[in-house]
């Protein structure tokens, strides 16, 4: 498996890209920065599994926490409101 590059508390940014094929990084979060909430483990890459390939080596998967007010223009709610989702390491860069 690929070694985990990030740890809980690290600030990371989701890469902005619009590739083809099967992608599990939602469009709405690409380009935004958040904080690693936990390392979920390493999993076979779904982008490759979708194409009948084995998706190995397993990629580290992180839960990343984003502030809602950072992601949505004009977000109205508690500034502490957050959005948490899973991002594979190859979609992240240090921030």
């Amino acid at each position: 498996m690929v070694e985990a590059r990030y740890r809980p508390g690290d600030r990371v940014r989701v890469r902005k890209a619009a590739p083809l094929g099967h992608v599990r990084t939602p469009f709405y979060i690409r380009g935004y920065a958040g904080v690693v909430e936990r390392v979920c483990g390493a999993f076979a890459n779904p982008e490759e599994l979708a194409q009948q390939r084995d998706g190995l080596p397993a990629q580290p998967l992180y839960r990343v926490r984003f502030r809602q007010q950072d992601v949505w223009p004009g977000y109205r709610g508690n500034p502490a409101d957050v959005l948490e989702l899973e991002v594979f390491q190859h979609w992240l860069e240090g921030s």
Partner: protein
Amino acid sequence: MIERGHHDMGGLPAGKVRRTEHAYDDWELRVDAMMMLLIGVVGGSKRMTVDELRKNVEALPPADYDKMGYYDRWVISLTQTMIQRGVITTDELARKLAEVEERGRG
């Protein structure tokens, strides 16, 4: 726009949530069961991954995606995947569809 999958809808504007509940028909439960078996969650019939199921659902034309029910999408995706995997052929499917439809008229 092609760069954003039609299924990738988080954050897009939409109407009110209609709190519909749905008692599943047998045919839908059969689709669900076939999915569980074919992706290998249960039983020894693994022939595909859930990722292929998702990919083929995502490949549905947007207007169909919107109009189709949940298990409509799944049954099409499962069948496409079985063709892609070589478990069944298009010709086998064509003949079987015709046979089943004919049987229904009998």
